[in-house]
């Protein structure tokens, strides 16, 4: 069995009296895109810093590309911090040179690889322009490419989509998929679930320093109730009696009065609808709404306990 690119076992991190991460364990398989999700302050950045070896865990064990300390394999890791991460006066060419050299790459190779990625992102014309003259989206791409020129096995991206417009987000998603296609493991943190939903093979959800979910995106979605929208003059009490229904809320939609019906996890929307029609409920329109990762995120993080020591 292939060793995971990243393996954390019972990791905790405290800063004085404040516990940022508590008893965290997960694995990121090689060659996959791994989402590290959670609201602000969930402990994502602290965890990534422990993985990189920038801070030591208070307790627990970490394995990064087979090493017990990220610093030992730093040349095999590419890291993009949240926003920026570039010298403003540098040109992309100089940035590829400098950051590539720190990872042991010669100047010519770093520039060649960097330029190829830059051209692929439609930014070939920016190769020799100072970063300060580039837009935020362009600079973010340059920063990411700087972290990739040495072709790392593990790519760690901290909130890579932060502040990007939809076009640049899509372009960045394509770049990330390309990394996984060539065999790199991508770990990225975000609190925007849509990106994780589109990109990730596996996610870990964090809330208040604790892990609240670990598994494939589909499993995260299955962990939250499905939802039915029923439009028409319907008695909510009769809907509550339908099989698998856990909650009913009234709302006014463009089509008129409607009910938002929550079903228990694993309950069948078909069974509930069938029973509704059997009972003769006056339904003019219905919609089965699949839970999104965002829904899962809300539900799973809502009840997470505090981690303050």
């Amino acid at each position, binding site marked *: 069995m292939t060793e995971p690119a990243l393996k954390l076992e019972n990791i905790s*991190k*405290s800063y004085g009296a404040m516990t940022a991460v508590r008893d965290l364990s997960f694995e990121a398989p090689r060659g996959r895109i791994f989402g590290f999700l959670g609201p602000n302050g969930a402990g994502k950045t602290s965890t990534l*810093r422990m993985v*990189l*070896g*920038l*801070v*030591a*865990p*208070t307790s627990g064990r970490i394995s990064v590309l087979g090493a017990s300390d*990220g*610093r030992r394999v*730093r040349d095999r*890791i590419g*890291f*993009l*911090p*949240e*926003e*920026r*991460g*570039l*010298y*403003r*006066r*540098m040109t992309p060419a100089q940035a590829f040179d*400098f*950051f590539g*050299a*720190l*990872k*042991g790459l010669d100047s010519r190779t770093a520039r060649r690889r960097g330029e190829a990625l830059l051209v692929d992102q439609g930014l070939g014309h920016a190769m020799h322009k100072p970063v300060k003259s580039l837009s935020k989206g362009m600079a973010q791409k340059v920063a990411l490419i*700087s*972290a990739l020129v040495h072709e790392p096995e593990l790519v760690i991206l901290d909130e890579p989509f932060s502040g990007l417009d939809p076009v640049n987000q899509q372009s960045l998603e394509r770049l990330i998929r390309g990394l996984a296609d060539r065999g790199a493991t991508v770990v990225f943190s975000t609190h925007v679930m849509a990106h994780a939903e589109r990109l990730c093979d596996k996610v870990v959800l964090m809330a208040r320093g604790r892990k609240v979910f670990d598994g494939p995106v589909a499993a995260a979605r299955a962990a939250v109730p499905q939802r039915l929208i029923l439009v028409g003059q319907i008695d909510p009490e009769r809907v509550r009696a339908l099989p698998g229904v856990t909650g009913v809320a009234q709302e006014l939609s463009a089509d008129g009065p409607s009910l938002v019906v929550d079903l228990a996890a694993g309950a069948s929307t078909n069974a509930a609808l069938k029973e509704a029609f059997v009972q003769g409920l006056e339904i003019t329109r219905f919609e089965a709404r699949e839970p999104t990762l965002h829904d899962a995120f809300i539900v799973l993080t809502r009840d997470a306990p505090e981690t303050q020591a």
Partner: protein
Amino acid sequence: MRRALIIAQREYLSFLRTPGFWISLLVMPLVGMVTGLAPQMIARTEPPPTVAILDLTGLGADGPGPWLVRALARPASADAERPSDGPGRRSARDVRRSITVVTAPPAFAAARTPAEAGQAIRAYMAARPLLPDGRPLSGALVIHGDRDQLHLDLWTPRPQVAGWSDALAAPLDDWARRARLAAAGVPPGVADTLDRHLADVRNFSPQAAAGRVSFADKAPVLVAVGLSFLLWALVLTGAGILLNTVIEEKSNRVIEVLLSSASVTEILGGKILGGALLSLTTMSFWGAIGFWLIHRSAPDMLGVVGAALTGHGLVLWFGAFFIVGYLMYASIFAAIGSYCETPREAQTLLGPVMVLLTVPIVFLGATISAPDAPLLKILVWVPFFTPFLMTTRVAAGAPVLELVAALAEMMLMAAFVVWLSGRAFRSGALATEKLDPRRFLAALFRRES
């Protein structure tokens, strides 16, 4: 080591490419030249002082007033310099030559007593009228008393700058001496020769190469003080550059990328090395300008300065103190920068360091005349002051044991400061909370978890 060199190279080249670096490189010598020439420039633009003399002794044409007027009107060639003249005599003679005697304005020319003259002069000067030729009156000298005891009342609207009393008193001392000699029956011809028999003062020192003290013997201490100022400027400039780059890296999160690519030692080492190379570039540039200026204006001085630099191994000690002093201050500045995202945030923590940097400069001027002063001997043992004050001690011929011990102490302190700064740098670079001096101090001594 490879990564440290890469970081050093970036630090060096990135600043070398900025126009600001080259501007500051040129501005500093200009500021230095202007500072050095400022007193002369001001003196040249200042009109010659005008002095009105009022003789109330009633001694007529043989009185001290006319004697003083004649002495001040005497051509410079008649007031010959002598090798034995010390700085005091030369200065008084220069001032005397610059004074122009003017006719006393009617407002106080008719005064008959010192009190009356004082009152009239006070009223006249308060109104600040101009003389008929358009110049202001710089001073009024009221001479009173008798042959036995002369009194000089010098009135001037600017008492803080007028340094003429001694210059004006010297000819009157001569008059009084001649008057007493005449009263004692000494012929005037004998009195004339007395000036030629004034004591001939000569300075000797066992350190002086030729026994007799010349400028070449004073040069080492002067050069050492100059080097200390240079060291101070370089440390401040180099460490300041380092501070600004770290602040920039902290604010744009590059510091996190660096920390993920290199160790703290490599990052700090590279930055300090890069800053040191910039300082050396600056020093070489300023040194070349200094060499050119001396070569152009006083070529003979090149040998004197060269001998001063090599005497007592001054330049070697300077190099050692520069390296250790720069290392100490640069690492402190880098650690401070790692906690700040803006220069304003840095000011809070820089305050105490700037006080440390100011103290040696306050004492540096005094070291020229008193390089062996007990207070100085104590201060050089404070490691934060050692690099700036010890250079003067080297030039003054301090025992080698003292120099070695001070350097060793400083190296120990520098090692401790670098270690502490490394911890602070790592902690500060990753800190996201608002700057808090208490947390800063706590981070220095906290055990890494």
